[in-house]
């Protein structure tokens, strides 16, 4: 029997179980995890107890047939829309069958290969980007390393045994070869495994950093993109259907992270929320009760090929800017989200992308879309002016004159395949345009068609009560701004925010919201505001996206979750001023319902986890060609700069950190003190470990099991103390002499003087070989003998 057989089986089983756990977590299927996990655990008890039972080869074949049938059934049910998940399920079913089988080397290899395939599949799934999956992957790699090493040792012994069996006559049954092992083989094995693991990790990091990256998304995107997952996952929609019922509070799953910097310093906080613009909808269809994009937009659509350094949309040189970095986590969208202030002009000047080759940009509504939408985690940057002034649309037109413009009557053939006139059509790419009408074209975002008089009367009454003119068609920008603020304030103060969409007697939900229910969700608030604005001559449109108000203090960034999906309105302040963002939804009510924060330790832990996950995603998952170039450039410049520069960089880093942390002098002293205490603690720990190891070596305990070794090293410390005392007075035990012989030799020299040595040696033997513990009585004896030995030796020395 191979002594490594059981350790290998145990490790392999753990590895397989971990693979199943990780895949189910990546897929987000707790029920599947419970089912398969329970089956796997049962298989362990079934096969490992009672003489290693297992289903026969025939049963295995039938099981494999069943797994194939299960796969076929799943393909028919889901339409193979998620091939990666199908692969994972198929491997899982095969694993379960193999786990119940009688397993040899081949079966274990199959199981491990299936498990590895499962882990790779899981890493491509949307849930594979989480920190939990990353940690599981790390543990899996460690387990896989140990399993591989153990398997190598075990299979080597097995092969030798098999060769011996084939060399022997049939009536001979040679025993398993006795493994010849040198001293400290377990220790060597552990260190070897650690060294190999470290080496492999270093190689993995180097390959990860330096392997060539493409700007294009790979096959993983297509494979892992679940059908129709954009809305269901993000909580965000590029259209609004007001008859859709209640919206709910949404899932707390993180969707994206936003980090905003100004002059290199991170800015933000929970008191300073941002709105992330996604889709811009300017046409309300009363018959379908939904908001869509109008054909008016299509005239200003442009396809821009983003360069390696990014895409300049407008030139605002000299103005202070916000530099925002958005990390899309679990979203499969065409829309690129752009931050904007909760109330203020809309202006995006620069887009920094790494994976999207072609960007669709609309000058009119500033909607940014990717022509190669990715379900992979991606990161992009946006720049926007701190205090935008003027109408930025003119700057766009000046900056982007020669880009491909899009017409409504062109046929889409894909990016880079424009028609003979160099035009693209994006209708097949998810953008929904409303019906074309010349009247609407002329009156972009000014038409309101449902109960215009009633809504207009309401708007006018609000404006009148605020002391503002009721016809704003020709009003200046300040008046318009004041009017729209008055309308929004009215809605905020007199309407109730709720996630429900209450039924009303009115046919139209906006009318029902404004006149009957006076309560609704953010889409109704935004629609109501847009309707009121349009009825008094203010062009207004709706924007859907996210409201970023949850701020992670540890990492200095906003966490945007599915439940933070939001809708608001934008109003045109007139020529030369551009569009103005205004959110009519009561922020406190939104925060109360959608930003449920857990305080205290739990909240801190959650923030910490979010931060770690964000770092994991920002450094590992979203690592792309641009990040690679930046990192390699930084390393190159760091190396070429020389040691002086390194010191300077370190000092600058410390200064930056200290300024960020706002540490004063007392803080520095505290930090130094804490560092000293930590260093002393670390030094003590290392010293203790070294001394214990030396004791073990001196007492020749290294061959014992770990727990016994430690216990004896602690209990037999008195013998080392005795040897030290003797050594101090000139009696040293030769390493080849046993304790008994040493004590006897001393006693023969001077019995009275060295009697404590004999007693202590007897105690040593009792504890070391007699299975006696060093109880209180023996401790007292040890102390007394040591004192007496010291006394007698010092007396004789005098």
């Amino acid at each position: 029997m191979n002594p490594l057989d059981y350790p290998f089986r145990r490790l392999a089983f753990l590895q397989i179980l971990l693979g199943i756990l990780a895949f189910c977590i990546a897929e987000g299927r707790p029920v599947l995890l419970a089912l398969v996990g329970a089956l796997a655990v049962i298989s362990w008890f079934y096969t490992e107890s009672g003489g290693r039972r297992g289903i026969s080869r025939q049963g295995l074949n039938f099981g494999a047939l069943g797994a194939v049938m299960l796969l076929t059934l799943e393909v028919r049910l889901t339409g193979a829309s998620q091939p990666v998940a199908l692969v994972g399920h198929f491997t899982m079913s095969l694993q379960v069958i193999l786990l119940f089988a009688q397993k040899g080397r081949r079966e274990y290899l199959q199981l491990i290969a299936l498990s590895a395939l499962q882990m790779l599949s899981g890493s491509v799934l949307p849930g594979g980007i989480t920190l939990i999956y990353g940690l599981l992957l790390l543990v899996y790699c460690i387990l896989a390393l140990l399993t591989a090493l153990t398997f190598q040792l075990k299979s080597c012994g097995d092969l030798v045994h098999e060769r011996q069996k084939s060399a022997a006559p049939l009536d001979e049954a040679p025993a398993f070869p006795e493994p010849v092992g040198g001293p400290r083989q377990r220790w060597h094995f552990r260190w070897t495994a650690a060294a190999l693991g470290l080496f492999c990790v270093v190689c993995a990091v180097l390959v990860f950093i330096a392997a060539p990256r493409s700007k294009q998304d790979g096959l993983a995107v297509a494979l892992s993109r679940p059908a129709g997952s954009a809305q269901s996952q993000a909580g965000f929609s590029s259209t609004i259907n007001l008859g859709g019922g209640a919206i709910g509070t949404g899932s707390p799953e993180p969707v994206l992270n936003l980090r905003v910097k100004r002059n290199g310093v991170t800015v933000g906080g929970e008191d300073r929320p941002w709105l992330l613009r996604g889709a811009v909808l300017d046409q309300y269809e009363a018959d379908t009760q939904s908001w869509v994009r109008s054909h008016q937009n299509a005239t200003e659509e442009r396809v821009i090929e983003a360069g390696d350094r990014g895409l300049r949309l407008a030139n605002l040189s000299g103005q202070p800017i916000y530099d925002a970095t958005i990390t899309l986590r679990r979203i499969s969208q065409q829309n690129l989200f752009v931050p904007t202030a909760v109330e203020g002009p809309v202006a995006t000047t620069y887009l920094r992308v790494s994976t999207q080759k072609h960007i669709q940009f609309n000058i009119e509504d500033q909607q940014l879309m990717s022509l190669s939408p990715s379900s992979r985690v991606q990161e992009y940057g946006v720049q926007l002016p701190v205090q935008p002034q003027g109408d930025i649309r003119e700057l766009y037109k000046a900056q982007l004159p020669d880009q491909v413009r899009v017409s409504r009557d062109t046929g889409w053939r894909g990016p880079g395949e424009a028609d003979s006139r160099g035009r693209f059509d994006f209708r097949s790419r998810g953008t929904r345009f409303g019906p074309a009408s010349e009247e609407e074209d002329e009156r972009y975002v000014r038409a309101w068609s449902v109960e215009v008089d009633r809504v207009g009367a309401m708007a006018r009454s609000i404006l009148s009560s605020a002391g503002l003119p009721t016809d704003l068609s020709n009003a200046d920008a300040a008046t318009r701004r004041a009017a729209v603020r008055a309308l929004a304030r009215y809605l905020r103060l007199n309407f109730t925010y709720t996630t429900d969409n209450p039924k009303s007697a009115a046919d139209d939900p906006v009318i029902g919201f404004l006149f009957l229910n006076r309560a609704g969700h953010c889409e109704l608030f935004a629609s109501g505001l847009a309707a009121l604005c349009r009825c008094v001559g203010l062009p207004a449109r709706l924007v859907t996206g996210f409201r970023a108000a949850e701020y992670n203090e540890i990492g200095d960034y906003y966490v945007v979750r599915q439940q933070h999906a939001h809708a608001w309105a934008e109003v045109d302040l007139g020529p030369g001023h551009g569009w103005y963002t205004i959110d009519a939804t009561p922020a406190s009510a939104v925060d109360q319902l959608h930003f449920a924060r857990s305080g205290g330790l739990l909240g801190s832990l959650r923030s910490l986890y979010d931060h770690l996950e964000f770092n994991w995603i920002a450094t590992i998952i979203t690592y792309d060609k641009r990040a690679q170039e930046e990192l390699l450039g930084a390393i190159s410049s760091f190396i070429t700069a020389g040691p002086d520069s390194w010191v300077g960089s370190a000092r600058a880093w410390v200064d930056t950190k200290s300024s960020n942390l706002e540490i004063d002098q007392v803080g520095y002293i505290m930090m130094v003190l804490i560092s000293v205490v930590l260093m002393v603690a670390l030094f003590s720990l290392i010293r203790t470990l070294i001394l214990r190891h030396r004791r073990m070596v001196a007492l020749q305990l290294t061959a014992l099991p770990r727990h016994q070794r430690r216990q004896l090293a602690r209990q037999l410390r008195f013998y080392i103390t005795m040897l030290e005392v003797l050594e101090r007075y000139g009696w040293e035990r030769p390493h080849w002499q046993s304790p008994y012989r040493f004590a006897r030799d001393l006693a023969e020299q001077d019995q009275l003087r060295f009697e404590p040595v004999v007693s202590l040696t007897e105690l040593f033997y009792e504890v070391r070989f007699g299975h006696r513990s060093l109880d209180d009585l023996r401790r007292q004896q040890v102390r007394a003998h040591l004192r007496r030995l010291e006394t007698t030796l010092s007396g004789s020395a005098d």
Partner: protein
Amino acid sequence: MKPTRTRLEVGPTGRVFLFVLALTLGAALFTQANLMFMALGLLGGLLLSSLVWAWLGMRGLELDRLPASHGVAGEELVLRYRLSKAGRVPVFSLVLTETWGKGRRGYKRAGPMKERPQRLLERPTGWVKHLARDAVCQAQSSCWPIRRGQLGLQAIELHSDFPFGVVRRVVVFEDPQEVLILPRLYRMTRQAMGAVTRLDAGGFHQLDKEGGSEEFYCLREYRKGDSMKIIDWKHSAKTGELRSRQLTQPVPPSLIIMLDLSNYAPANQDDAVPQRTAEDEYAIDRAISLAASLACDAYLAGYRVGLNIDGADTMPLRPHHSHPHRAAILETLALVRAGTLPSGVHAPSETPSVIVQAGGERGSLRRRRAVVLLGDELEKITVPIAPNQILASRHKRDRRGERPVLDRDEPAFEVSSQERGAARA
């Protein structure tokens, strides 16, 4: 001994690993998934670490085969080695294998597995799980020789595919050595031993030989130091000279075994040796095994054993009872080459008590006062192992398709006239 040759091999696991590596590389480039790049790096690390470990771990290895005295056909032969490591890193999972010829498949072209009849079924293989640096250990490998004779050992191959079985560094230590394999031994049945011993007259009475303490043998003159007890006082008184009594000593019975290989010997010295098939070789080995088993059992029973071989160029061994003598008999039987001399060249000095004949009753020896045992009847007169067990086991394996089928008509052993002449000289 330091290694004479080294080579790097990629085994089946390594080939699978390289395939997976290529697959992962393609997948990483195609999918651009970062974790796939990480997996690619890990696999690359595994490959690199395997290469580095193969280079570092096998450095400073020294190996010596400890000389083996002899083995017995059909029984386990343990070969022992002294293995030391001088490098800085420990080595795990060392496999040592006896090998012949050159290259990876050399043992299939030369050596005892290539010989017909096969002398070994598989190469002797041993396993060292761990060898620390500056450590010395004794390893061993086992094999089961099928036939008697000299088992020639040529080289030891030491390899380790630790840590991941991807690449394997092989170091070869040339250490030619020969191990004498004695004929396969059986236990004679009681009936057979009884039949053999009854015919021998040597054990029924005391032989007249002085120096014992049994009965009176003769008188002789007194020698200084003789005990007073053995002085024949009466005769001394008569003759006036001191006389001592000589007593007889018991002489154990003797057994002279004649191994008759004349059926496979040429008729005349100048004739060519007839070609022998594997079946013939098998019959010769059975007869030799029977003779060896008889010699050993007789030695255990206290007989003086002598050996004559007819039809082979070996000198007769006079009856004697001692451990070295038994070893000499077994060595002679282990090395005997049938057909090197015609029948009757070495005439037996004493009348054989047992004739062990190979190849049935075709022999021409006189059978007066001798028991004739046929090699073909080995299974009838020995216990408990079936005599054809080894060959039978090989044939069973042949049926399973694990071994090449033994061609019984294949000439397995030839002795040319030149060889015979050289042996005679």
